[in-house]
């Protein structure tokens, strides 16, 4: 069972992509398929960012430390969907019109935010290998805090994109905020404890 867990998580994580590909191939997308692909890959990026960010709080609350085994794969899936999302925009939506893309990224805050979220994920994906973890040592953890920036930028990107800010983008913003606040609270607790221990000594 233990051995099967990872492949199962992998299959579940790749399933949204396969389902999207199937819908595209079989003509089950809407009459604006590029929009469907953009929205689907975008929302799954955000979902995997949230799931990845949830690993540490869940471990701390439940004490179920095995969860850490899945964190890298989940994070890489966030990057996988983000890459598809950006590729959809560059290739399918604007078809390599780099001048328009550059203007979009510079002029439109919502696209700027999305690009920040994506770019911040690139070094994380590149340094996700065992070799890089070893090489970077303590700095690895520091570097990988970039996921906080990525998640915040992704949520801002979503909030800015919709015409009326209700429902789903608000829920995702709240979840990301809760996951980040948990970390701050945990850090404070750890500090207070060590301060108390120092006082005891």
């Amino acid at each position, binding site marked *: 069972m233990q051995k099967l867990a990872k492949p199962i998580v992998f299959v579940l994580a790749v399933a949204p992509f396969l389902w999207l590909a199937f819908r595209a191939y079989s003509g089950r997308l*809407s009459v*604006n398929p590029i*929009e469907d692909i953009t929205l689907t890959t975008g929302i799954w990026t955000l979902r995997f960012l949230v799931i990845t960010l949830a690993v540490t709080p869940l471990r701390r609350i439940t004490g179920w430390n095995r969860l850490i085994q899945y964190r890298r794969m989940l994070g890489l899936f966030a990057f996988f969907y983000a890459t598809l999302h950006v590729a959809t925009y560059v290739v399918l939506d604007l078809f390599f019109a780099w001048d328009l893309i550059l203007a*979009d990224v510079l002029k*439109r805050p*919502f696209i700027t935010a999305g690009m920040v979220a994506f770019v911040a994920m690139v070094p994380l994906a590149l340094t996700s290998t065992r070799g890089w973890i070893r090489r970077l040592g303590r700095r690895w953890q520091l570097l990988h805090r970039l996921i906080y920036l990525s998640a915040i930028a992704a949520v801002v990107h979503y909030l800015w994109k919709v015409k*009326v800010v*209700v429902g789903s983008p608000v829920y995702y913003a709240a979840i990301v905020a809760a996951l980040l606040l948990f970390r701050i609270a945990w850090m404070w607790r750890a500090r207070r404890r060590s301060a108390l221990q120092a006082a005891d000594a």
Partner: protein
Amino acid sequence: MLIRTTPPMRASEITDEPVYLRRREFIRLAGSAAVAVGAAPLLQACAGGDVSADFAGTDGPAVAAGQTPLTNVKPKVVTTDEKLNTFNEITSYNNFYEFGQGKDDPQRYAGRMTTSPWKVQIDGHCNKPAEYHLEDLIRPHQLEERIYRLRCVEAWSMVIPWVGIPLADIIKRAEPTSKATFVAFTTLYRPKEMFGLNEPVLDWPYTEGLRMDEAMHPLTILSVGLYGQTLMNQNGAPIRLVVPWKYGFKSIKSLVRIQFVDRMPQTAWNKSNPREYGFYSNVNPEVDHPRWTQATERRIGEFRRRPTLMFNGYGDEVASLYAGMDLRKDY
């Protein structure tokens, strides 16, 4: 719904006339009105490339449940050589937030709206305020086929063969007074049938407005059908406004009230976000939405984006309405 006097117009009858070949756009509107707005040439035709404006390449018009064929429609009052969007495209991809915010929500849920009987109230500054049954409102007027481009503020577009009557006909019947400088429109508010109304997405009911000269413009119509059939609910059945040179949200759906007012009326999207949605909301490739470009659009059914045209390509007819105005300020 509407009284049937002649056999229904078939799609194949209203297209495919060689005389229109090599003409990109063909607009024959009520003469006096066209002159009044300075569009003197009654018959407008610009030279264009090869043309194939028949419905043959499309999968419409299927008769969906609840639709009735519209009869006695004057064909090709406004037409174009551009490829029409299919019936499926026009009826499966809609913005109608009263039925949810997804593009496929209206198709799924708009069927719950009862559209018969339907009354339209006409009031405000006019000599003949009245509440009409839809049939009585439409019957005295000649139904016309108007093939218009529809440009959504979200940067997608379609070409739609509407059937309707000029709004000006209705306005004249109501005899607005000199105080009537604007026209305000209201969509049906019936939360039991329109679940989106239970969410505070916009300040319900949906409202829109036009300046009197915009409302009287011969291109402005009240549509009751498309592809020769009565409207589907997701397209704003049983009667909706169509203003082809403005972003789609100005063309208010499922209309229940037309009110003559003496000041610029508040409109739903403008109230929601005045910086992004102006009262005029003319299609303008040079004035971007604060969050995205309006310079290009995706025609539904096409892969590459295409440039957006000033006034959605109706500049010859409507630009004079805005002479002297700064359209960057009055967006």
